[in-house]
């Protein structure tokens, strides 16, 4: 076998900077996930709240308003017959869209993030891929950012893009532009809130993934930390009646900050600034874990 047979070429073109390399890591990760059939089934299960919201939107705008039985939002309460209960609470747009998000999509996102994020770095560590990454022209921080971006994108697919798609469909299903005018002020804040939630969740689960070479162990750690701290802070709150204990629960911190961004009333009077402080502490802890667990010297050679 000689080189001439196959034409090995020299490359004299430009080398791209850091961002395209981070993008390459993220896009390859996303592609790897979305072509697994089991993952697609799980993904569909996790976007079920968005699918349900779409059904509500369809019933409200096409079935009810299309038949002329109801003119505006307030009249939903006056509905009689099947579907009345479903729509009884849909008194304002924020509740219509944010309530399913808070009640179903956000808790589901925790399970979903464990599946997409816990194996993110641990699988690479197990298969020796970290050695391949770190001996290329990237820094460990680039590698982490690529992984984080991939996990965040996949969480966004579940609770941000799916809801955004429902909102766009609702805008066009509505009989007039009233729905758009009504929601135009709320939706940007809602996107920001969900974006914050996805990014933070993605960061934490990716950082935790870097601490082990077993994806299963990473999932157990993720749920262990979340569930344990959730339960502990709730018990403390019930016993002592102090809401600031929630600062120690990542779930409460992320959710409260997201609620504050979206302008939704928070639960149990937990101060959003305290939640923000808790989130900052979580990020600091995540950075520390990353620095400690992903030193190239430890994984190469």
């Amino acid at each position, binding site marked *: 076998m000689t080189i001439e047979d196959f034409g090995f070429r*020299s490359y004299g073109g430009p080398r791209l900077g850091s961002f395209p390399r981070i993008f390459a890591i993220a896009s390859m990760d996303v592609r790897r996930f979305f072509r697994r059939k089991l993952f697609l089934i799980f993904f569909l299960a996790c976007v079920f709240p968005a699918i349900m919201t779409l059904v509500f939107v369809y019933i409200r705008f096409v079935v009810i308003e299309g038949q002329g039985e109801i003119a505006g939002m307030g009249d939903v309460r006056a509905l009689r017959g099947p579907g009345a209960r479903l729509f009884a609470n849909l008194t304002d747009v924020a509740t219509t869209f944010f309530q399913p998000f808070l009640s179903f999509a956000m808790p589901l996102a925790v399970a979903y993030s464990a599946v997409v994020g816990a194996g993110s770095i641990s699988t690479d560590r197990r298969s020796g891929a970290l050695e391949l990454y770190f001996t290329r022209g990237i820094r460990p921080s680039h590698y982490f950012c690529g992984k984080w971006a991939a996990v965040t994108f996949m969480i966004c697919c579940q609770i941000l893009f799916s809801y955004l798609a429902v909102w766009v469909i609702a805008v066009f299903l509505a009989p007039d532009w009233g729905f758009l005018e009504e929601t135009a002020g709320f939706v940007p804040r809602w996107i920001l809130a969900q974006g914050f939630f996805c990014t933070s969740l993605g960061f934490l689960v990716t950082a935790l993934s870097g601490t082990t070479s077993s994806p299963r162990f990473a999932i157990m750690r993720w749920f262990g930390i979340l569930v344990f701290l959730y339960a502990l802070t709730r018990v403390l709150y019930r016993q002592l009646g102090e809401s600031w204990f929630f600062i120690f629960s990542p779930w409460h911190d992320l959710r409260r900050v997201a609620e504050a961004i979206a302008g939704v009333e928070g639960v149990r009077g937990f101060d959003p600034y305290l939640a923000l402080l808790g989130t900052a502490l979580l990020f600091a802890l995540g950075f520390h874990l990353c620095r400690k667990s992903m030193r190239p010297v430890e994984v190469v050679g």
Partner: protein
Amino acid sequence: MTRGDLEPAVRLEDFTIRYGSFTAVDGAAFTMPRGACGLLGKNGAGKSSILKAVLGLIRPSRGRARVLGMDALGEGRRLRDRIGYMAEKETIFPGLSGLEAVILAGRLSGLPPLEARQRAHEVLFLVRIEEERYRKVETYSAGMKQKIKLAQALVHDPELLFLDEPTNGLDPGGRSEILDLLKDLVRKKGKSLILSSHILPDVEKLCAHVVLIDGGKVLREGSIAEMTGAAGRLYRLRLRGGSEVEPALAAEGWLREDLGNGEYRVFLPPEVPAERLFELALANGAQVRLLELERKSLADVFLDAVRGAEVSKERRA
């Protein structure tokens, strides 16, 4: 040609690496010229630490490392774009096909997406992975995984290849193919490579220069031809008759060893042609029955160097 092109592939100067109280590399200083070089040493000799230094991933306790004319530590990231690395252990991008893995390797080295795809196909043809490139790497045989690792190391057209046991797990045919390919890369494409291998015949076949290390210290460095005696200085001479030959050899001042039964091992200085031995034998009434270049194998050289180091260590102790 830039100034960097004239620089040696690797140059370590007074290079010391310590992990806590343990000294992994102790004052190593060597130069690996462009072309194919071997890095030989037992397990724990300090090869991995040197590798990390070459890749710009490790800060030495003392000394410095220059690779392709660049400061390995200060310009590590830029340097790694010019180096191809093939690890010894199994390293794969999980869940990707062979083609995707090579594309990703190219893109991580800064190739534009389209170029990375095109070059990935080319290097996969080069290492003879054809339809299998669309299968997941996890399903590959050990030999195919080696080839994928080599393709990943080559895809971004590096100037220097660092290959750690590249022929592990390959059948004789595959091994020969890979060695021929690497030889072509060095001779026809002007690539440099550093080969770390325990398979010494591979090193002898491919490399012109070797560095022998043990216990974190450089035992020997130089061209294989010089080390093994293939440079033409060491001869095995068998004579019949002529008892005056021995004093004549001594009178010439050449290093020699009497092996008994009229056999000698003679070191000739570079300026002395081998014909001089015939002349000497003739002048002293002896008949030359055998005159051959004596070569040590690289394994002999390596073992001699290790033994020599152990003996001098014992003496010092």
